[in-house]
């Protein structure tokens, strides 16, 4: 599969799992996309470790240092997996994986070249797993009551994925 | 062509008309039907309840009656499955009978299997009428893998309208000793099956295993339904 095909499958499968999925062409578009996604006035957490993360939240108001009080986390994730439409967060480079768990809204940035086509390819890349790896597909959910799907349980109620070049 | 007919204990005692229809059908297709005398039961009731010795005894007796190389034909999916799949395993350590059991397993057919695979009966025209639905017996379907043959034969019944049953493959609740040991559950399952049948609007329900049809007939009767219950061989024989 070509990179375009991988991205296309990734976005389709992510959407099927109730994640928002969008593609942006450059840093400016990324910043605009993030600004549109975050809720007006609500606190946003971003580790701002990578260039992409910094570009994504450039000029964004209401930034907080503590993800535990944030309404949304904006972060670049470790990887994507096209087969399942998943993103992967991991405890590398001092990252707090809880940042993708506690806030109500998770905005995940994944460069297209970090998207693996299959689960096999992803796991092959994980030679020495960090302490905590989370393969995330869509927002949190449950069907515990009458098997009726309810989105947004203990983890994020909303997941938006932005694919960058 | 000649076949050996295994009537089954259920047909022998309770549904001899199914045996009659089986013979009539086979003879219509020019098959010589031999009924080896002294046949009793395939041994399922014992086998399914965990009584392997008694089941082995039944198998030994069966194999002493059904000798030679002719196809063995039976109007019961579960009995055919017993011979085909369980006899070789039951007798694999028996020096004398291991080979015989494998031979019998290799030449046993459930009726709809034989009609379609060997006689191509589904290519002929039979007369049918009314609205018909079909119950897929568990052993027939899951162990023998007979899924298409009954449906092909049903479609050969010109004049009958076939309506598929919801959850056709769900167990009727017979289960051999199960119906005696857990009658409450058995009746509940039979009742659900009756509901599925009644939902089709059919006037007749058919199948390939008399034990299932018996359970179904009782389930329908308890609901006060007048839907007729007929073995597929009966419908075909009547439609000749």
């Amino acid at each position, binding site marked *: 599969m070509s990179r375009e095909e991988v991205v296309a499958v990734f976005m389709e499968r992510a959407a*099927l*799992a109730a994640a928002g999925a969008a593609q942006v062409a450059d840093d400016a578009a990324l910043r605009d996309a993030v600004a549109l996604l975050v809720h007006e006035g609500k606190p946003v957490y971003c580790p701002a470790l990578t260039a992409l993360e910094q570009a994504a939240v450039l000029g964004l108001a209401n930034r907080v240092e503590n993800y535990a009080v944030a309404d949304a986390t904006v972060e670049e994730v470790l990887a994507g997996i096209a087969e399942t439409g*998943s993103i992967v967060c991991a*405890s590398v480079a*001092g*990252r707090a*994986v*809880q940042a993708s*768990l506690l806030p109500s809204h998770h905005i995940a940035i994944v460069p297209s070249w970090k998207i693996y086509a299959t689960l*096999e390819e992803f*796991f092959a890349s994980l030679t020495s*797993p*960090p*302490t*905590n*790896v*989370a393969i995330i*597909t869509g*927002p*949190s*959910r*449950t069907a*515990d*009551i*009458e*098997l*009726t799907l*309810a989105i947004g*349980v*203990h*983890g994020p109620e909303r997941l938006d994925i932005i694919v960058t070049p | 062509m000649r076949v050996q007919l295994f009537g089954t204990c259920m047909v*022998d*005692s*309770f*549904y001899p008309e199914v045996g*009659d229809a089986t013979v009539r059908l086979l003879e219509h297709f020019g098959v010589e039907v031999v009924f080896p*005398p002294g046949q*009793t039961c395939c041994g399922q*009731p*014992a086998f399914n309840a*965990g*009584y392997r010795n*008694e089941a082995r*005894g039944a198998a030994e007796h069966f194999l002493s009656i059904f000798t030679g190389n002719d196809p063995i034909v039976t109007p019961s999916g579960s009995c055919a499955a017993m011979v085909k799949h369980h006899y070789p395993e039951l007798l694999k350590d028996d020096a004398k009978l291991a080979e015989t059991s494998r031979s019998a397993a290799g030449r046993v057919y459930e009726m709809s299997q034989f009609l379609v695979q060997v006689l191509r009966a589904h290519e002929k025209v039979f007369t049918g009428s009314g609205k018909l639905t079909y119950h897929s017996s*568990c052993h027939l379907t*899951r162990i023998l893998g007979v899924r298409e043959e009954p449906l092909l034969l049903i479609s050969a019944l010109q004049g009958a309208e076939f309506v598929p049953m919801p959850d056709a493959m*769900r167990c009727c*609740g*017979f289960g*051999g000793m199960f119906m*005696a*040991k*857990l*009658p409450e559950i058995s009746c*509940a*399952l039979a009742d659900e099956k009756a509901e599925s049948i009644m939902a089709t609007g059919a006037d007749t329900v058919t199948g390939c295993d008399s034990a299932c049809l*018996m*359970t179904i*007939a*009782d389930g329908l009767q308890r609901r006060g339904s007048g839907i007729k219950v007929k073995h597929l061989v009966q419908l075909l024989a009547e439609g000749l």
Partner: protein
Amino acid sequence: MSEEQTSRNFRANSAASIADSSLRAAMKNATDTFGTRRTAAFGAIPDLEALRDKASEVRMQVLDYLPQYLEKFTANATSAGAMVHRAHDAQSAKELIGSILKERGVKMAAKGKSMVSEEIGLNAHLEAAGIEVVETDLGEYIIQLEGETPSHIIVPAIHKNRQQVGRLFADRLGVPYSEDPQVLTKIARKVMREKFLAADAGISGANFAIAESGSLVLFTNEGNGRMVTSVPKLHIAILSVEKLLPSLADLPTFIRLLPRSATGQAITSYVSLITGTRKPGEATGAEELHIVLLDNGRSEILAGECREMLKCIRCGACMNVCPVYRTVGGHAYGWTYPGPMGMVLTTLLTGMEKSYPLVDASTLCGACVDVCPVRIPLVDLILKLRGRRISEGFSSSREKLGMRFFGAAVKNPVIFYWLERVSRLFWPVIQKLSGKNVAGRLPEPSSKPFHRRMP
């Protein structure tokens, strides 16, 4: 789970379930829905049979070399910072976990779903020791509030309808009554969030343990599994010894099979990989991780003829298609595990004396065999257990006598046909004796049996 095993009352339990119309409706709705979802989920998979073969092979491989894989897992988990304990039985597991928590002064533990913790009765033990255990999985939370046990291994509160849950929350949490699952879920989110953040310890199960990397794998949807394994400083994971996989490369097969088999999802919202404790420079991970590997009878099963039961990956697909489970629900089975895998595993783990009626709980229809992702030959195992019941002396003497007669008659046509005639003559008596629900369902024997119509 602290309630006594009631498997011996399976028939009476079942009769009660059958009479419970709201339970019947809940079970029908659930099993119909599971069926539709599973079919849709696997429709997209072109090589399902090959996948099942692979999964079965991998699980068999693990069972064939279990001691070695356990050793490998232990070594790798330990070098990643975990403390790995082997618990021989339920009591030692409970005591171990209780003492770890007590020593660290834990007052409240947040718990993710773990069937094996139900099996050993962990919650009751901890509560008796003065430790509050909060079930954080929504289904488990519901039954904990209700004081019940799970009735399904994936969806513990499947036997309840929305009205019952609404009333439960209104009564026990003091919230306004609502039967909207979305509203009820948000209530649980709020209640649980406080607990996660206040918990002194997290207790979880694990779907798999990876020998090669020493990792625990959790398949979850709600986020509570992630919470209890990454927020509190202390994490205790309990799983049974056979839940191992050799390497990370084996995971894709199970990621493709387990969620589809369980709930019809292509993948759960979260697949978590936990490898040891927080390393220097990391901001996620427990500071202290205890992994309790529970045997509780598995070694014995492994050495026996029913060892394939240990391939089970706890997906629940078998109970979702079982006509008996559909009719009677999970509680009728009287112990932790219901349905086809439950009747076999319960009998193997708790013994024939406590479980023998369960081996009857099957019509041998084979629907379970059709769907088991790891190809456990459940019907064959049930037949083996039925044989074992006889040899261990738990069959009724009336049945044994009857079978002996049958065994003699079936080999002797003269006797067989004579019995047919006698049955017909005494049919009204037979019907009366066995009841309208047994012989009353059979037609009257024919006056001219088929064998007398044939030359």
